[in-house]
């Protein structure tokens, strides 16, 4: 695990456009940070949300998962992170079945930011971020000497070092979200999964947060997988885009190849024009809609 962390730049490996069905893990996924789903089915109270899904998430890259509401993208993330049990199939990390790992072992490699986070009353920023060290601590939670340095780095990386002493409850939405991300960073994992990290944030904070995740991927080589709603930001910030619809992956690959007018129509049922983003050149989805005010 530690030797993998020495990779600091994203590996420029060719990304498979679609994981072949039912093929066993190959040496390509020998990288510790490759998450892979094989024939995964997940449901709630007997209702299947995802059925037999195969997916490989490229290591050391930023992947965005997009799709219409209730398409199962959050459920998939929860299944990958072992927050929700699988009904069938398996999830592997670097070729190892994650269900064979202890939760703590997994938490040292995969960090997850769930959709909703509520901080306990009275807890302060540095303390909350410090809880990210839990998987690295032994039985009585003895504090380790490098814990402080790690927490401090996480606070600095997310730009909340000045707030270290403040109660989390007093912060604004944008600050609070950065604190939660700092907690996941303090976990020091090779893979970070985020479920709609930009919800509740205004557009400036959304961009700031995605820049931060990009930096994290660039500087630490962390594999970032995030569920996003905003297609244009997903196209701009992700190396690899996964489009889901009705519990399956309908397209995946480089955003410029995947995010076409046809894909938007079939996945979202939305008629749209796709033009190059004037800033980044990535696909920009412009909905057509029925009403067009203005000239």
């Amino acid at each position, binding site marked *: 695990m530690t030797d993998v962390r020495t990779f600091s730049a994203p590996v420029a490996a060719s990304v498979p456009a679609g994981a072949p069905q039912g093929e066993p893990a190959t040496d390509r996924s020998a990288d510790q940070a490759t998450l892979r789903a094989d024939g995964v089915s997940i449901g709630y109270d007997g209702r299947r949300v995802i059925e037999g899904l195969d997916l490989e998430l490229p290591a050391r890259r930023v992947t965005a998962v997009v799709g219409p509401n209730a398409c199962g993208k959050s459920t998939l993330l929860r299944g990958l992170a072992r927050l929700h049990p699988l009904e069938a199939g398996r999830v592997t990390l670097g070729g190892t079945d994650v269900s064979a790992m202890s939760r703590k072992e997994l938490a040292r490699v995969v960090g997850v930011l*769930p959709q909703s986070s*509520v901080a306990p009353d009275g807890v302060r920023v540095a303390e909350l971020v410090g809880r990210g060290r839990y998987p690295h601590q032994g039985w009585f939670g003895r504090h380790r000497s490098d814990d402080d340095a790690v927490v401090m780095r996480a606070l600095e990386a997310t730009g909340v070092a000045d707030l270290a002493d403040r109660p989390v409850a007093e912060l604004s939405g944008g600050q609070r979200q950065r604190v939660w991300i700092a907690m996941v960073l303090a976990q020091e994992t090779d893979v970070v999964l985020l479920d709609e990290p930009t919800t509740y944030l205004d557009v400036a904070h959304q961009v700031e947060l995605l820049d931060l995740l990009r930096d994290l991927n660039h500087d630490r080589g962390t594999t970032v997988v995030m569920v996003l709603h905003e297609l244009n930001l997903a196209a701009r910030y992700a190396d690899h885009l996964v489009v889901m619809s009705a519990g399956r992956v309908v397209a995946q690959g480089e955003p410029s190849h995947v995010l076409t007018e046809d894909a938007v129509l079939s996945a979202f049922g939305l008629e749209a024009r796709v033009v190059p983003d004037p800033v980044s050149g990535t696909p920009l989805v412009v909905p057509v809609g029925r009403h067009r005010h203005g000239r």
Partner: protein
Amino acid sequence: MTTTLGAPTPTSAVPTPVAALRARRRRKLALVLTALAVLLVALATLALTLGAASLPPSRALLALVGLGDAGDTFIVHRLRLPRIEAAVLAGAAFGLAGALFQSTLRNPLASPDILGIASGASLGAVWALLVAGLTGLAVSGAAFLGALTIAFCIWFFAWRQGLHPIRSVLVGVGFAYLCSSLLAWLLASAEVREAASALVWTVGSVADVRGAELTTFAAGLALLATAVAVVGRWQGPLALGDDHARGLGVPVDAARVGSLLLAVGLVALATSVVGPLAFVALVAPAIARRLVDDGGPALTTSAVTGAALVLAADLVGQHGLFDISAPTGIVTGLVGAPYLLWLLATHGRKSQA
């Protein structure tokens, strides 16, 4: 921002805000615990001196270390000390149990009183006394089974792919009523003399707990508290919610079940010795959390607060209410009920905001 990510933090002599905050927390916890310990000693001294035969503190302390005259020694060692010990042990057990319930279920209302766990223990004890005709340890065992049965029922009705905190409180309230009704029915149908001796299991009192019973109580509490120290490790991540706790590597369901079983054990143990002592498990952790205020479960502080609370309540019950001597449970109930009302009033307001 990018440069700070990979760069090593300079190791300077100035402590990081993280270390400074932790040091401040430790100092505050030490201060709170010291203050509570001083209060506990003061209350205990008062309890040794007050009574039908009033002893000045100097004579009481001499008797305590075995240097007083025979009369003083008898009063201190046979009458007053066991009562103080019972109050401290019971308060600590209820305080710790309440803190575990509240932090595990993430609800300040989740206490064995509200959840019906305490009523379950009472019901078990009263059933053993009046119906099965049991005595001694068997009564404690029946109290434990009663508490465990209610805990299991709550679990059975509140479990939906995990233990839902709010649903478990609502289900528990229902079972608390059920137990109270059954208890009233058992007492109503019992002989008057028997009912009077069983009444202690419905109100709670630290009087008349002696020798061997105290030793068993202390040993049981020590055992359970050690186990709590182990599961206490999970409470920090659990307080962040199930998803975060799982993401941090906590086996959430096992942690919840383990913590709650220990809390049930603590309640059953204490209830079987001194009766239910209303609201101690609800109030003590709330005071403790307010004193410590670090977003944690405040387990140790809750135990010490509970001990001080019960000792103070017993003093008030014995000497504070003019000529009437009230059982400890009545006094804790008088203190706890207004707190519960206040909690319900402010809790609702907060969730509306």
